């Protein structure tokens, strides 16, 4: 009996000390900059709480609107401050922060990387090193009014040509006052205009840059993509003229209010649809194919760890935790953000939440996503967006607009980076 007590005591002490050793490996608290506020990010908030509970680490979240995140973080990192340990940022921010050496490699093993869609890992990798732990993704999908298509006896469009034909039939002046009451199709404009262009560009077989960072989006594929975007507004007149100034929220509003029958938008919209009057009337399909397939531009969030952090180990543990299967599942089920891990879509909890057809579309869509890494993202995006807007409002031809954007970006890279 005495012997047993001694053994039990020894085992208890060992367990206690080994536990303490694990606990001591992590910092007491870390500071994380989140893209947007947590009130509208319930899955992230929930997973942060889970991390805090599981690791005994307090996470201080600083909420920053995504539009200002690059500005704020650049200011923090350029002074080599350790105020931020990790941040939830977009895939497109990678080069901005990795190029000056402000990010810490996330340390994924090959096996860990295999869990994610290849496009996602590629978008999180800069010069061969993976810096981002994928949290969620926003890929372009086609949201359509099932009831309206059925009423007209129309099939869901699978190609660009079909999209135009179906959209024409769904564009209607219902009360005969000369104004269109229902448009056939809309895509994301305003600050997401560059995202939309890239999706159409990839679907035409084009790319933004070559391996030497020369702009190549003004190729024939790029011109085809931009011409398509312009023709939807001006030639086919199936897309509202004002789409240039309408972003993700506005386009979602148009769809939900019945002003547009089909939209190419990003996943949180299916969550909105399910909580609206359109539930049951709307459905989801893969984005229609261009001449080179239906690859979608990859937007969404990843967790990056600061190279100036003094709590890198804890910050990395946080990043990996947030990109785990369970956290991705919560992003999908609680917020409607697509998972970068295609296996998550097989989870029964996902199938319980969304119609099976939607789940299949989402799973197939996330397997074919793409984003290129290039530096000075904000300047590039601004130049590109401005020229796209000029092509769409008819003040320039698509060829001229893209050539001008390419020339401006080349000049920018030459001036700033010496490329």
């Amino acid at each position, binding site marked *: 009996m005495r012997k047993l007590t001694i053994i039990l005591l020894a085992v208890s002490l060992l367990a206690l000390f080994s536990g303490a050793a694990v606990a001591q490996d992590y910092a007491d608290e870390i500071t994380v900059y989140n893209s947007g506020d947590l009130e509208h990010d319930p899955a992230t908030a929930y997973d942060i709480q889970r991390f805090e509970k599981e690791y005994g680490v307090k996470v201080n979240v600083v909420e920053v609107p995504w539009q200002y995140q690059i500005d704020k973080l650049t200011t923090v990192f350029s002074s080599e401050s350790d105020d931020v340990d990790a941040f939830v940022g977009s895939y497109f921010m990678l080069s901005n922060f990795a190029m000056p050496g402000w990010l810490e490699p996330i340390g994924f093993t090959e096996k860990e990387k295999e869990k994610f869609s290849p496009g996602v890992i590629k978008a999180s990798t800069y010069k061969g090193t993976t810096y981002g732990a994928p949290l969620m993704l926003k890929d372009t999908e086609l949201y359509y009014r099932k009831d309206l298509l059925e009423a007209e006896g129309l099939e869901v469009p699978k190609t660009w040509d079909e999209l135009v034909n179906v959209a024409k039939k769904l564009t209607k002046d219902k009360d005969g006052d000369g104004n269109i009451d229902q448009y056939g199709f809309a895509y994301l404009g305003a600050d997401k205009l560059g995202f939309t262009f890239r999706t159409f560009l990839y679907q035409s077989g084009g790319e933004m840059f070559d391996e030497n960072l020369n702009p190549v989006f003004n190729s024939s594929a790029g011109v085809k993509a931009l011409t398509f975007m312009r023709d939807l507004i001006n030639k086919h007149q199936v897309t509202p003229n004002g789409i240039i100034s309408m972003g993700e929220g506005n386009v979602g509003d148009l769809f939900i209010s019945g002003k547009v029958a089909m939209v190419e938008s990003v996943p949180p919209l299916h969550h909105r649809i399910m909580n609206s009057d359109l539930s049951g009337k709307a459905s989801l399909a893969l984005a229609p194919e261009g001449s080179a397939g239906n690859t979608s531009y990859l937007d969404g969030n990843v967790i990056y760890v600061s190279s100036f952090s003094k709590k890198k180990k804890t910050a990395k543990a946080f990043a990996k935790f947030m990109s785990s299967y369970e956290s991705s599942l919560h992003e999908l089920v609680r917020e409607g953000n697509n998972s970068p891990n295609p296996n998550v879509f097989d989870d029964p909890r996902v199938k319980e939440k969304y119609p099976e057809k939607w789940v299949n579309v989402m799973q197939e869509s996330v397997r074919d996503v793409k984003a290129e890494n290039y530096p000075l993202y904000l300047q590039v995006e601004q130049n590109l967006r401005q020229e796209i807007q000029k092509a*769409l409002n008819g003040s320039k031809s698509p060829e001229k607009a893209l050539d001008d954007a390419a020339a401006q970006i080349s000049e920018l890279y030459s001036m700033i980076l010496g490329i």
Partner: protein
Amino acid sequence: MLKKIFNKYFHYWMIFPAILLLAFVVIYPTFNLFYTSLFFKNGQLGVTRFVGLQNYKKLFFDENFWQYLGHTVVYVGSAVTISLILGLIISNILDKAIKGRSVLRTIMLLPWMIPLVLTGITWRWILQDIYGAFNALLMQLGIIDQSIAWLTDGTTAMMGVITADFWANTPFVTIILLAGMQSIPDQLYEAADVDGATGWQKFYNITLPLIKPSIFVALVMRTLFAIRALDIVYALTGGGPGESTEVLASYIYNLGRRWLRMGYGSTVGVVLLLITIVLVFSFMFILKPGSVRE
């Protein structure tokens, strides 16, 4: 001895804290702005290199700068002029003993109370082509029969930015001018009445000359606010379509804050500061007290 010196320069000691504060919040930042403009300074690349006046030379050939300067002139000129005219009209109405004046004054202030970013977002909704209230109103009135995408065309987008600006800032001008009007003695108007002056004659010969100092203050303040305005432009158009509503303030913000090209951004900042100083001195010259009709 020390006490003597202290007493002799007592007034300097009294204003010393204020001078110190001014030096800290005005002189140092201004000097630093000019100093930074002499460098190639890119925060993202971590490169800082003295380039002398090269940034100024580059600015001279920078097409964006000239284009955005043109936009700034149109924006500031239109927004300030319109808000001044409207402010004059509204303050003149509110200065009269009309019924419900105090309620009207409060209502009139509402647009000014709203943060400018919200003003920009609100007007973006108002000007939308599909569900925008402005199109609906014009169609109801029979002025247009087709919705107009105001924010899609460069000219109409600029008109939208100007409209949002004077909508938000006219109350400020009104308050300043109203204060000026209320300081005018009633006897002057009574004397004019005795002489048989019309309403316009009273306004032109009494009100306008006597509120010149208020007009000067309103003009200077409004111009300063408009020249550095960024909120409305960003929230309403984001500088687009194309760069048709991009102004110098947004250019400086992009260069310095978003793209971390601090050296060149400071150069544009110095030039904008000089333009502002020239404008303020011009207003002082035009509206100098001696020009008031006695």
